[in-house]
C-alpha cells in the first residue's frame, strides 16, 4: 500500500519495492542490511573496539533467529529514507523515533524503547537557561524529533507536559548537521541549548568527555517517543523481524540486553503484555525519570 503520497519516481520505486518480497530477497542473500549511525548506547564501539550496543546485539539476535547475517552500514542520517527506497539498506534500526511522518513513509515495527527529549546546556548557565529560554538560541539535529517538536511538525500527543514549540516560542532556532554538531554548537556557544534525544545525550555528555562542562536537563517533559525499526513501505520483512523479536522477548533476551545497557526502565514490553502495561509505563514522569536513571 503506497499511501505515502509521494510523486514521480519515488512512488514507482515504492510500489516496486512492495510488489516484490523483501523477505525473499533477504533470505536469498542470507543477509539483512541495517542502516545506522554510531551512537551509544544503541550502536557503538566499546573500549576493545568491539561493535556493541543495544540495537546492535538485538539485531544480531534477530539475525540468528532468522538464520541470516546482519550487515550494519553507517549511513548519512539525512539520507535514510532514500537509502531505504533505493534498497541500499533493508531497514533503519538505530534508535529511530516513531513519528507521524515516518508512519506515512515507512513500515514501522512495534516500539521497543521509550525516549524523551533532553535539554543540553553549559553547566554554569543551567540556572539562567532553565529560568527562561527567551531570546536564546536553541539547536537540534536537522530532521530529528527535537527539530520536529520545536517546529511543530511533530504534533504534541497526550504524553506531553510541556509543549516544546510553546516553551521555545521566543527562542531562535538553528538546525545542526548532526546531533554531535548540536552539542558542538552549545560547546562553541553558537547555540545556548540543544534539544536532543536523551538516550543519545547520555551517551555523549559525561565526565570523561570534552563536554564535561555541560549538563543534561530533563526537567521538562516534552513528551514520550518510541523507538521503532523502519522498513520500506509495505515490506514483508517487518513481519519476520517482529516475529523474531517477539520470540526474543519471550525467551528473556530483550530484557537481558536492556539490563546490560542500563535501559531496563525504558523498555517497552512486547505487544501482548504492552496492551495492558504500556499505558501505565507511558506516563511521562516515570519515563523521564527512568531515562535519567538508566544513564547514570
Amino acid at each position, binding site marked *: 500500500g503506497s499511501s*505515502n*503520497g*509521494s*510523486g*514521480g*519516481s*519515488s512512488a514507482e*520505486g*515504492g510500489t516496486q519495492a512492495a510488489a516484490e518480497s523483501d523477505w525473499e530477497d533477504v533470505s536469498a542473500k542470507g543477509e539483512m542490511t541495517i542502516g545506522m549511525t554510531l551512537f551509544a548506547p544503541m550502536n557503538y564501539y566499546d573500549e576493545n573496539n568491539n561493535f556493541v550496543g543495544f540495537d546492535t546485539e538485538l539485531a544480531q539476535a534477530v539475525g540468528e533467529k532468522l538464520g541470516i547475517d546482519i550487515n550494519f552500514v553507517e549511513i548519512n542520517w*539525512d*539520507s535514510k*529514507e*532514500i537509502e531505504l*527506497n533505493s534498497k541500499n539498506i533493508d531497514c533503519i534500526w538505530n534508535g529511530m523515533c516513531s513519528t507521524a*511522518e515516518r508512519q*506515512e*513513509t515507512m513500515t514501522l515495527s512495534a516500539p521497543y524503547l521509550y525516549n524523551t527529549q533532553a535539554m543540553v546546556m553549559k553547566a554554569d548557565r543551567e540556572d539562567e537557561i532553565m529560568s527562561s529560554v527567551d531570546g536564546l538560541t536553541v*539547536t537540534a539535529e*536537522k*530532521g530529528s524529533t527535537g527539530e520536529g517538536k520545536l*517546529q511543530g*511538525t511533530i504534533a504534541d500527543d497526550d504524553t506531553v507536559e510541556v509543549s516544546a514549540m510553546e516553551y521555545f516560542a521566543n527562542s531562535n532556532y*538553528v*538546525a*545542526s*548537521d548532526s546531533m554531535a*554538531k548540536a552539542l*558542538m*554548537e552549545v*560547546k*562553541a*556557544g*553558537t547555540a545556548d541549548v540543544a534539544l536532543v534525544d536523551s538516550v543519545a545525550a547520555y551517551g555523549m555528555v559525561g565526565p570523561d568527555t570534552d563536554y564535561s562542562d555541560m549538563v543534561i536537563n530533563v526537567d521538562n517533559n516534552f513528551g514520550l517517543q518510541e523507538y521503532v525499526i523502519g522498513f520500506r*513501505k509495505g515490506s514483508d520483512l517487518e513481519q519476520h523481524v517482529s516475529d523474531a523479536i517477539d520470540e526474543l522477548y519471550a525467551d528473556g533476551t530483550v530484557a537481558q540486553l536492556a539490563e546490560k545497557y542500563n535501559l531496563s526502565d525504558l523498555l517497552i514490553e512486547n505487544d501482548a503484555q504492552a496492551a495492558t502495561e504500556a499505558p501505565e509505563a507511558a506516563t511521562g514522569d516515570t519515563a523521564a525519570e527512568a531515562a535519567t536513571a538508566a544513564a547514570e
Partner: protein
Amino acid sequence: MLGANPIESLTSGFLLNLELFAVTLLLALPLGLIITFCSMSRFKPLKWITKVFIWVIRGTPLMLQLFVVLYAPGLLFGIPMSSRFTAAVIAFVINYAAYFSEIYRGGIESISVGQYEAGKVLGMTRSQIFFKVVLLQVVKRIVPPMSNEIITLTKDTALARVIGIGEIIMSAERFTKMGLIWPLFSTALYFLVFVGVLSLLFGWVEKKMDYFRV
C-alpha cells in the same frame, strides 16, 4: 516550512546559495588582490607568512574550514560566532580569496616587463602604469581561470549545509524525509542553469576583450 511547495522551497534555498555566492565574490575579489600584493611583497616575512597562509587554505578541505570558522571562536576564546551565515561567508571569503590571489599573481607575473618599461620611458608613474597599462591586460588574462574558479564557487555553496545553512540541497532533503525524492535530484537543474548563465556571461566578457591581444 513543511507542506510548502517543493519548487518554492528549493528556490528559496537556492536564493541562499546565490546570496552566499554573491557576498563571497564581492569580498573575496578585493581581498584576493590584497593577498596577492602581500605574496609579491619585497618584505620577506610578509611574503612568507602569506605563502604559508595560502598553502594552508589550499591544503585543507573547505568543509573543515567551515567548521573551524563556526566553532573555533567559541571553543577557543569563548566568543561564539554571532551568525552562521557570517561564519559561512568568512570561510568562503578566506578560501576563495586565497585561490583568487594565486590567479591574480599568475596574471600579473605574465605581463611582460616591456610593458612596464614602455610606461616608464614615457614618464608614467608606477600607479599610472598599473592602472592605465597593466590592469586591463591582467584582467584579460585572468578571465578564463577566474571563470573556472567562480563556477566552482557556485557548486561549493552547497557545502554550507554542513554548518546548517538551509541552502538548496538541505531544503531538498527535508522533502526526502517526507518520502519525496525528486526535489533532491532536481536541485541539479538549478546549478546547471546558473552555471550555464555564468558560462555565457564569461564567454561574453572574453569576447568583449577580444578586441585586443596580449
